[in-house]
């Protein structure tokens, strides 16, 4: 267990890199900040790999540390500590691994920036990684909350990195939204603290004598806390009512978008639900609700992605839609498969966004997939990884996406046939929009006006990143080959079993039926292949100028979600805050403060008139006062 003592270094190194680069941002040359950022995450990755190795050994027990005391109340204390279990070890490996690849990618990719700007950018990438590590490693809910809030902050800085009004506005909007989510999470945490007097994850959720099992929570507590947690998870993971924010992260530079949309922010919501899965397993209604939200998001996101031409927005809505799958997986109780799908999605979405970044640079920043496809196709270093990402994400049968999605579909089928059907149609849509991009790339556009300015083939770092990511994206699913194909090869699920078995016990409905699963596997394979072929021919044949129906305009604008959000949420909030500013603050509070001064000045001006210097009036007042005193004394007080 000696290796475990170094786990505090995992979040510490990226954080030190963040501090270092931020403090010395004016001095550091670009390659130094890039190197420092990458190497810090690489060290964390190395330690994570060691930890993972140790966790994998059969004699591994749960490992928890506590370093110092955060708060202490009368009869309970909250420590700052980390927790290593199977779930954590997988997640830290994914976060540091993908984080490292994105860090080294950002060096050559962002070579247009000045060294100070680059240092800041790279520093905030490190901060985002640190926060995510804190979130997944926290031994109690409070530490997790710190990571959660840190991610909001880092996202805010990264989104506002390119300075203009629009970016600042959307970054602020997203930050406020995330604050609302964080507030909900904090309320839920406080609720748990008041009822259970502890925030330790092990005591609350894990083991045979988890507090949620021994002291069965009341119905109201369960519903309240799970609604609060789900609300904040929905915001973080950009699920249905809040899905628009991901499309606004496209304002940040490509590596930041990749990091936000893959392994950190959007996955955090799903990871929160998986961490607290016991809470949700105890209230089946909430699970069904989660699955329903996931289904809505899946379909909506895929429909919107189908009609986008801006590649970064398209990928953003694809993220939204894919996380719908993850939430469906959580909702039907397939926690480990949902997590596997989230990781596969993270890897392949990183690959897609980074290669799309190459596309954006090539296509003179038009981001329009209808143009300059041919040139992108010629850039093998960008195009082949993009294809690999599409294959992994589009669930093409032998590759990783298919393996993970198949398990989720099985669980959905066992749980609820409607959710299964929705997932299947979501899968078809997913394949369709991915094929649409590829088809448009093959069709090309009017590239004559565009010359290649950027030679991505030359940067070996970028090629290497893409290579690693592509291999990972295609093959990572094979760690969990379903039992129907070959028994005993679902390493991932069985690895996570100690963590998730407590909650999965509550949600398992039917016993596994091998024959049925084989049929389902065949069905989904056929559906995916059929939709690949069908949409390939459909989009190849489609005319260059698509006809604009009202529905497609609606989809193109993402159901005007932004505007609806503005009208129904932002404007009332703004009105209220204006009311508070103009009326409550300026008139009542400031008015009362200023009013005291004004009253003194006014009354002194009036009272000064009394001081006339006329002896007679003084005496008269004195006499009147005396008379008044007597009247009060004799008639009123008696």
């Amino acid at each position, binding site marked *: 267990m000696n290796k475990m003592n170094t786990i505090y270094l995992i979040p510490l190194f990226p954080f030190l890199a963040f501090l270092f680069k931020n403090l010395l941002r004016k001095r550091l040359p670009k390659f130094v900040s890039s190197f420092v950022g990458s190497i810090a995450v690489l060290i964390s990755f190395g330690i994570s790999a060691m930890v993972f190795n140790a966790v994998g050994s059969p004699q591994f027990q749960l490992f928890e540390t506590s370093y110092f005391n955060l708060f202490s109340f009368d009869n309970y204390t909250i420590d700052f500590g980390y927790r290593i279990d199977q779930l954590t070890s997988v997640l830290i490996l994914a976060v540091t691994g993908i984080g490292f690849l994105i860090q080294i990618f950002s060096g050559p990719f962002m070579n247009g920036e000045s060294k100070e700007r680059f240092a800041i950018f790279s520093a905030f990438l490190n901060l985002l990684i640190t926060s995510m590590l804190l979130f997944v490693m926290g031994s109690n809910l409070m530490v997790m909350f710190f990571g959660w809030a840190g991610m909001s902050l880092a996202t805010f800085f990264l989104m506002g990195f390119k300075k203009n009004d629009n970016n600042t506005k959307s970054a602020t909007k997203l930050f406020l939204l995330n604050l609302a989510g964080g507030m909900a999470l904090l309320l839920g945490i406080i609720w748990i603290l008041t009822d259970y007097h502890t925030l330790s994850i092990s005591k609350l959720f894990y083991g045979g004598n988890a507090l949620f099992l021994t002291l069965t929570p009341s119905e109201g507590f369960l519903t309240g806390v799970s609604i609060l947690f789900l609300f904040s998870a929905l915001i973080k993971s950009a699920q249905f009512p809040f899905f628009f924010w991901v499309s606004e992260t496209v304002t940040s530079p490509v590596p930041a978008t990749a990091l936000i949309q893959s392994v950190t922010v959007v996955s955090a919501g799903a990871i929160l639900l998986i961490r607290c899965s016991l809470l949700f397993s105890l209230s089946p209604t909430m699970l069904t609700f989660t699955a329903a939200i996931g289904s809505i998001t899946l379909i909506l996101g895929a429909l919107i992605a189908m009609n986008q031409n801006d590649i970064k927005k398209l990928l953003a809505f694809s993220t939204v839609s894919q996380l719908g799958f993850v939430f469906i997986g959580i909702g039907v109780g397939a926690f480990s498969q949902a997590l596997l799908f989230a990781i596969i999605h993270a890897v392949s979405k990183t690959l897609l966004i980074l290669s799309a970044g190459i596309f954006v640079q090539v296509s003179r920043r038009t981001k329009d997939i209808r143009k300059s496809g041919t040139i992108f196709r010629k850039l093998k270093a960008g195009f082949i990884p993009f294809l690999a990402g599409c294959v992994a994400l589009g669930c093409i049968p032998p590759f990783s996406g298919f393996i993970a999605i198949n398990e989720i579909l099985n669980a959905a089928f066992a749980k609820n046939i409607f959710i299964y059907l929705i997932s299947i149609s979501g899968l078809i849509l997913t394949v369709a929009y991915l094929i649409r991009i590829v088809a448009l790339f093959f069709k090309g556009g009017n590239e004559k006006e565009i010359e290649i300015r950027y030679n991505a083939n030359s940067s070996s770092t970028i090629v290497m990143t893409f290579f690693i990511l592509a291999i990972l994206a295609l093959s990572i699913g094979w760690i969990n080959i379903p039992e129907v194909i070959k028994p005993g090869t679902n390493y991932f699920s069985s690895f996570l079993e100690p963590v998730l078995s407590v909650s999965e016990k509550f949600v398992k409905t039917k016993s596994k039926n091998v024959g049925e699963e084989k049929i389902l596997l065949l069905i989904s394979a056929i559906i995916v292949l059929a939709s690949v072929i069908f949409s390939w021919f459909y989009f190849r044949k489609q005319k260059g100028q698509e006809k604009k129906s009202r529905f497609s305009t609606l989809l193109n604008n993402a159901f005007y979600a932004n505007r609806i959000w503005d009208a129904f949420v932002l404007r009332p909030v703004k009105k209220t805050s204006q009311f508070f500013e103009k009326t409550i603050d300026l008139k009542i509070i400031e008015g009362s403060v200023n009013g005291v001064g004004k009253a003194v000045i006014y009354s002194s001006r009036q009272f000064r008139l009394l*001081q*006339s*210097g*006329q*002896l*007679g009036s003084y*005496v*008269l007042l004195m*006499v009147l006062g005396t008379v008044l005193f007597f009247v009060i004394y004799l008639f009123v007080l008696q």
Partner: protein
Amino acid sequence: MEIKWYIFLGITLFVTGIAGVLTRRNSIIVLMSVELMLNSVNLILVAFSKMHLSDRKNAFVVNVAMDGQSFAFFIMVVGAVEVCIGLAIILMYFRNTRSVDINFLNRLKN
């Protein structure tokens, strides 16, 4: 004689004094009216003291009654001092302005 007659006399004198202070403009007469008010109070103090001293058995009452008489002495002294200073002020004032009209005194205001 009953106490009420003393009180009546005292009130009459006091009100006369007030009326004098309020209505007259001659500062010497105002000063005299102030003296009148002081003396009316003295009269009432001494009258009550005399009334209580008729009940000699209660030591506490006797003490309080003696207080009334000693107050009367103090008031006389204060009155004398006040008249001294007041008259001196009026004298200086008269020397400067050749008048004793009290309403000119409002120059003190500034």
